[in-house]
């Protein structure tokens, strides 16, 4: 540090970049325009400044923090700046948050996925804030001619207690820029956090609540056209199109063929939609035309197939099952699901001779940029992607298909075009959650110890539908996990908590059944397995046994597990995306049908950044998990989805959600992610509670099709 005195801004940034781990922050000291908190936001980083920038401070003390990751409803646009502001000791009231543009030179991992934003960026964001705080403190000490160690910071001020002097960050900003850059800045003690862990509102509330055009579909540019595509169903390709009628309709500018789809481009949404409906398209077979009945047969064939891939093998499963006093066997099935973000797919693209401009909702804007560059033969820096707020994503917007389509349409018609999908396009357009069927077998000895465990995952376009190292692996001496996959023309992709969103239901429902067969309390049964894994681990263990026990104990304590009368409780616990969540569902039978009244959720995601956002993520995951387990179902007839819109595909509504009681394990573990981990356990918490209430096991999603929901008189 001492050798790096008096650098100008540019040098500071170079040094920061050279310290490894990427550039952590930059000050845009040139921004003297008075940005006032609460006023309409405006651009802060002057385009000419070619350096990274997480935050800037203007002379009025307004701190602008750029939030680089895509905001899909997970609250990252609020959470990232909280971390920076914490270490900066900023007054949150004076913080203005802006969405950063896509710039992977300046920001790393501009992705919304895998519950990974906070775990990945936690340290960098802290260092960004702490470095700035350090330099402000040094600047004040220099001006007062006192030792920096006698100065403190609080809420946007540097204080010198001995002389009762204080200076605002705004007053110090220019001098601070000339201070040496700390090579290894000291971060706060976790116990000293003031902002992190508080309840902080969504920074976009003012815009959301007054209808500001924040979302991709709201993007508008004078002269842009609207595009919609008719895409082939699964296993079909385009044979011919008669677009004469569509072209003759008012407002229609062009009809073009893009791969196997037909794009209608025109002046207004309604005109384009009507023209799209007027297209006369002939499709022809281009692969298997699969129906749900085929899938049900294929699942059974796969589960009996010898051609599986072994994912994990511990001990000697065959002998264990041969010696078993009792064998429990069950199969579980989950259907394809669309993601159904309420804002359907859309993207704006303007392809020009030597560049392209993209604007829209993407969880992976960098991939959209790079694929566009490749498609157009442009260097990536000639493609810009502006991130918009997203009306949900749930994994659908990890794919770039809809952005690339917009690029292709814009290129074909040589005009700026916003391509939008109708709800029907969105629901029938594929990239679904894969469908899967599991077969579980458990061997118990005469003392009801679990001595053998087998899991086979049979899936359609899921690859490996198991997570072979997850619990109970490590706790069972003899274990075999294998998988088999069917390749289908029905496209699939990640769906919030990929794989585990159905695997956890199956596994935790099965363990409930095994506990029952062993005559043990479902919670006690799991705790015994965890103790066994701790004392005598079998093979590789990838989960933290103590953290898993911690959430179990918290859920048990908060729900009064086993001590309640008048309700039937069901238990589930799962580790996914680095975090641990235990849930207990409570069911009563009303008019002969089980009704889910309440879910207790206990999560260990490490340090909670924002109580408001964290509670939202847990509640949202529980509602998402329950809603899709109960109702979600996409079926097919000869490659064509049967469900097309929310009239025949049901999403959960307010009158169907249980109360959700949210708890977090309090610890000082670095954040491990919260966008997904509370979803996987929800299905089994419900199914196990329904079993307790009715004596009926649920083996297939959607649950609502089970006999038990038809009611008994």
């Amino acid at each position, binding site marked *: 540090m001492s050798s790096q005195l008096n650098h100008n801004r540019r040098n500071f940034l170079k040094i920061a970049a050279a310290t490894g781990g990427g550039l952590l922050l930059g000050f845009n000291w040139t921004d003297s325009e008075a940005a006032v908190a609460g006023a309409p936001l405006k651009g802060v980083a002057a385009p000419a400044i070619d350096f990274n920038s997480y935050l800037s401070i203007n002379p009025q003390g307004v701190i602008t923090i750029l939030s680089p990751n895509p905001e*899909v*409803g*997970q*609250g990252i646009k609020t959470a990232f700046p909280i971390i920076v502001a914490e270490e900066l000791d900023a007054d949150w009231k004076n913080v203005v948050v802006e969405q950063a543009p896509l710039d992977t030179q300046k920001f790393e991992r501009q992705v919304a996925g895998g519950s990974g934003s906070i775990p990945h960026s936690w340290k960098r964001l802290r260092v960004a804030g702490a470095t700035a705080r350090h330099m402000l403190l040094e600047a004040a000490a220099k001006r007062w001619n006192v030792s920096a160690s006698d100065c403190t910071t609080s809420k946007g001020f540097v204080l010198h207690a001995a002389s009762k002097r204080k200076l605002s960050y705004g007053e110090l900003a220019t001098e601070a820029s000339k201070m040496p850059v700390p090579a290894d800045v000291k971060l706060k003690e976790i116990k000293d956090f003031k902002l992190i862990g508080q*309840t902080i*509102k*969504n920074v*976009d*509330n*003012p815009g*959301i*609540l*007054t*209808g*500001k*055009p924040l*979302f991709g*579909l*709201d993007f*508008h540019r004078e002269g842009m056209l609207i595009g919609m595509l008719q895409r082939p169903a699964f296993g079909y390709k385009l044979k011919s199109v008669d677009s004469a009628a569509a072209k003759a309709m*008012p407002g229609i500018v062009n009809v073009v063929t893009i791969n196997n789809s037909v794009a209608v481009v025109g002046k*207004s*949404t*309604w*005109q384009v939609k009507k023209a799209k409906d007027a297209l006369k398209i002939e499709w022809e077979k281009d692969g298997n035309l699969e129906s749900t009945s085929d899938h049900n047969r294929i699942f059974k064939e796969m589960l009996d197939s010898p051609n599986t891939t072994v994912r994990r093998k511990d001990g000697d499963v065959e002998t264990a099952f041969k010696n078993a006093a009792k064998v429990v066997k069950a199969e579980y099935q989950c259907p394809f699901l669309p993601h*159904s*973000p*309420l*804002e*359907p797919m859309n993207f704006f693209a303007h392809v020009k001779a030597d560049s392209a401009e993209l604007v829209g909702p993407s969880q992976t804007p960098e991939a959209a940029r790079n694929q566009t560059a490749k498609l157009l033969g442009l260097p990536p820096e000639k493609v810009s992607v502006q991130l918009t*707020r*997203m*009306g*949900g*994503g*749930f994994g659908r917007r990890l794919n770039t298909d809809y952005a690339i389509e917009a690029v292709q349409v814009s290129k074909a018609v040589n005009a700026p075009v916003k391509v939008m999908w*109708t*709800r*029907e396009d969105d629901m029938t357009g594929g990239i679904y959650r894969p469908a899967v069927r599991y077969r579980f077998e458990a061997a118990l000895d005469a003392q009801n110890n679990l001595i053998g465990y087998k899991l086979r995952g049979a899936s359609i376009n899921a690859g490996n539908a198991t997570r072979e190292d997850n619990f109970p692996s490590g706790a069972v001496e003899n274990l075999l996990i294998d998988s088999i996959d069917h390749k289908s023309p029905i496209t699939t992709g990640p769906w919030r908590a990929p794989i585990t969103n159905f695997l956890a239901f199956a596994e935790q429902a099965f363990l409930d059944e095994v506990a029952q067969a062993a005559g043990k309390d479902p919670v006690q049964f799991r705790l015994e397995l965890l103790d066994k894994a701790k004392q005598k681990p079998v093979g590789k263990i990838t989960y933290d046994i103590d953290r898993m026990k911690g959430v179990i104990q918290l859920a048990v304590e908060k729900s009064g597990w086993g001590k309640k009368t008048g309700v039937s409780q069901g238990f589930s616990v799962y580790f996914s995306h680095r975090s641990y969540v235990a849930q207990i569902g409570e069911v009563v039978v009303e008019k002969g049908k089980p009704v889910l009244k309440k879910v207790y959720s206990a999560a260990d995601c490490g340090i909670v950044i924002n109580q*408001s956002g964290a509670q*939202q993520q847990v*509640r*949202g*995951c*529980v*509602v*998402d998990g329950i*809603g899709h387990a109960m109702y979600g179902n996409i079926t097919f007839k000869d490659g064509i989805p049967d469900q097309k*819109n*929310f*009239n025949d595909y049901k*999403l*959960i*509504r*307010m*009158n*169907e*959600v249980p*109360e*959700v009681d949210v708890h977090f394990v309090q610890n000082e573990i670095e954040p491990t992610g919260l966008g997904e981990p509370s979803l996987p356990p929800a299905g089994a918490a419900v199914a196990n509670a329904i079993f307790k209430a009715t004596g009926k096991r649920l083996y297939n999603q959607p649950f609502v099709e089970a006999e038990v929901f038809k009611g008994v008189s």
Partner: protein
Amino acid sequence: MALFKLQINGKSYQTEAEADTPLLWVLRDNLGLFGTKYGCGIAQCGACTVHLNGEATRSCTLPVSAIGTSKVTTIEGLSKNGDHPVQKAWDEVDVAQCGYCQAGQIMTAAALLKRKPQPTDAEIEATMSGNICRCGTYHRIKEAVKVAAKTK
């Protein structure tokens, strides 16, 4: 194409559209009012909810030709400064996750509270169950409706 005179958010607008164009697309494409959202186009999700003479109405299935002299209010016109009791309650409770459905939720809630200033839980559920929130913010929506009912 025909010329339509519309009363929206206390202002008069004139715009040309085909007679069967849903109000939703006239608002968004013709008038630049993007606060009213498209979610399904078949009046199932409620994202497009506006007020027609004070009543919550699905603008995605309401042809512009059917509006006549009815007064339309959109989220942009619910209050001058974003300070309608329902908007304030939505902020206080911090309802939004992705936020896409919330304009429709707010418009539905505002119409409910106008009709029924102190709704019961069952009434809130019955009315608000017409609006889908894919993020699952239903608990806070219900709470915010109650907060708004108290502060009205």
